[in-house]
C-alpha cells in the first residue's frame, strides 16, 4: 500500500487566501482540498496519509527553515512518495513545492512530483532536480494534472523506466539518455529535411536554445565625464592566464588592471581562445582591447575616464545561461566601479 504525503499551500489547504499566507507549516491527516483527488487516483494502490499545509509567504521568506519544518512534520509518517501542489502559475507556491520535493528526494530518498505552468518562475529553479508535470495556468485542470502526477509518482516508486518528457507530461530536465533508434541518424535527419522542404510538420530531436531580447539601455549622457570600460570575449589575458579562464565553454572572467597604461604591451598578454587565429591580437593586443586610443581620447577629454581595468572572458561554444550569469556579474562589478558605458569587442 503506497503511503503518500501531499504538500499544499494555505489556499489549497482550505485555510484562506493571501491573508493567511504567513501561516507556518502544519500537518493534517484529514483529506483536504486536492488530497481527495490524489486518493481517488491512487485508489486501491495507496493513499495520502498526511497533508502538510504552509503559507506561501512563510515558506518563500524562510525557505531553509520552512523546508526543515516540513521535513520534521513528515518524517514520522515514513512516506513512500511525496506530491507537492500542483502550483500552476503561482510563483511562491512553486518555490515551496520545488524545495519540498527536493528535500523529500535527498532526505527521505523517496520519489517526489510536483506540477507547474510553463511560465512559472519556479520552473527553471527546480526542473533539473525535480520531476515537474506541465500544467495549465489555473486549477481548472486539477484532476488531469493529479492523474499525471500520480502516474509518474507510482512509476518512479516502482523503479520503472521513465520515458521522455512528452510521454509522461513532465518538463524536460536537461538530461540526455542514450537510446537505440530504429533508423540511423543520417536517415532520420534526411527524413526531417524532406518533411521541412515539403512544408510538412517535423520535430527536431534537439531543441534550439531560445534567445531572449534585452531592452536597450538608455543613451549615455555626458560622454565627456563618463567612465568607459573595455570588455572583451576574445580571450585576452595576462601571460600565464592567472584566472585559468577556459579556452572554450568558459565559466569564468577576469579583470585586469590597466591603470596608467597608455597601451597594451604584447609581452604581457596572451590569448586563450580556441576559436580564432590570435596571431594579430598577440602582436598588438590593442587590436582587440583598444587601450591605446581610449587613453588618448581620455587625455583629450573626449571621455571622462578610461576605466582602470578591462574585463575578459572567452566567447567560444559557451552556454547561454552561464554567459548570462557572467554578464550580470560583470555588469554589477562595473556599476559598483562607477562605469556608465562599455565597449565590448568580440571576435
Amino acid at each position, binding site marked *: 500500500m503506497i503511503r503518500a504525503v501531499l504538500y499544499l499551500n494555505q489556499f489549497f489547504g482550505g485555510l484562506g487566501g493571501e491573508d493567511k499566507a504567513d501561516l507556518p507549516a502544519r500537518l493534517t491527516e484529514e483529506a483536504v482540498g486536492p488530497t481527495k483527488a490524489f486518493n481517488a487516483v491512487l485508489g486501491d494502490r495507496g493513499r495520502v496519509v498526511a497533508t502538510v499545509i504552509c503559507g506561501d509567504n512563510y515558506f518563500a521568506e524562510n525557505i531553509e527553515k520552512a523546508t526543515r519544518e516540513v521535513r520534521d512534520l513528515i518524517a514520522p509518517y515514513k512516506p513512500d512518495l511525496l506530491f507537492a501542489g500542483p502550483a500552476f502559475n503561482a510563483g511562491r507556491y512553486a518555490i515551496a513545492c520545488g524545495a519540498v520535493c527536493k528535500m523529500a528526494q535527498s532526505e527521505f530518498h523517496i520519489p517526489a512530483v510536483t506540477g507547474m505552468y510553463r511560465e512559472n518562475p519556479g520552473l527553471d529553479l527546480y526542473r533539473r532536480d525535480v520531476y515537474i508535470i506541465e500544467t495549465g495556468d489555473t486549477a481548472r485542470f486539477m484532476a488531469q494534472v493529479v492523474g499525471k502526477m500520480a502516474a509518474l509518482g507510482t512509476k518512479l516508486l516502482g523503479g520503472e523506466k521513465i520515458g521522455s518528457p512528452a510521454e509522461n507530461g513532465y518538463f524536460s530536465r536537461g538530461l540526455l539518455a542514450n537510446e537505440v533508434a530504429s533508423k540511423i541518424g543520417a536517415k532520420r535527419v534526411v527524413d526531417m529535411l524532406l518533411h521541412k522542404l515539403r512544408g510538412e510538420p517535423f520535430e527536431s530531436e534537439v531543441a534550439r536554445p531560445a534567445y531572449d531580447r534585452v531592452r536597450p539601455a538608455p543613451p549615455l549622457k555626458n560622454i565627456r565625464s563618463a567612465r568607459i570600460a573595455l570588455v572583451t570575449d576574445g580571450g585576452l589575458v595576462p601571460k600565464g592566464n592567472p584566472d585559468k579562464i577556459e579556452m572554450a565553454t568558459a565559466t569564468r572572467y577576469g579583470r585586469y588592471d590597466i591603470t596608467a597604461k597608455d597601451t597594451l604591451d604584447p609581452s604581457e598578454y596572451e590569448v586563450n581562445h580556441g576559436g580564432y587565429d590570435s596571431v594579430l591580437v598577440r602582436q598588438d593586443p*590593442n587590436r582587440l582591447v583598444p587601450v591605446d586610443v581610449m587613453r588618448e581620447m581620455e587625455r583629450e577629454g573626449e571621455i571622462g575616464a578610461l576605466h582602470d581595468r578591462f574585463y575578459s572572458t572567452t566567447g567560444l561554444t559557451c552556454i547561454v545561461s552561464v554567459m548570462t550569469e557572467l554578464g550580470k556579474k560583470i555588469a554589477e562589478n562595473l556599476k559598483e566601479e562607477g562605469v556608465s558605458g562599455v*565597449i565590448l569587442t568580440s571576435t
Partner: protein
Amino acid sequence: MVGSNRIVPAQKIVSPLGNPALQPEDEKAMRKNLVRKALEVLQAYLDEQKVFP
C-alpha cells in the same frame, strides 16, 4: 542577430580593431575612428537592436 543591442561592425574576426595591411599610424587612426563611432552609438537612443555600419 543574437545579443547586443548596439552593434558597430569592426574589421575582421582575427583583429576587430586592427588592420595589419595599414601602416601603424594609419591603423591606430582607423582604430580611433571605430572606437569613436562606438562612443557615439552609446549615446544614441534606440528601442531595438540596431547595427551601425
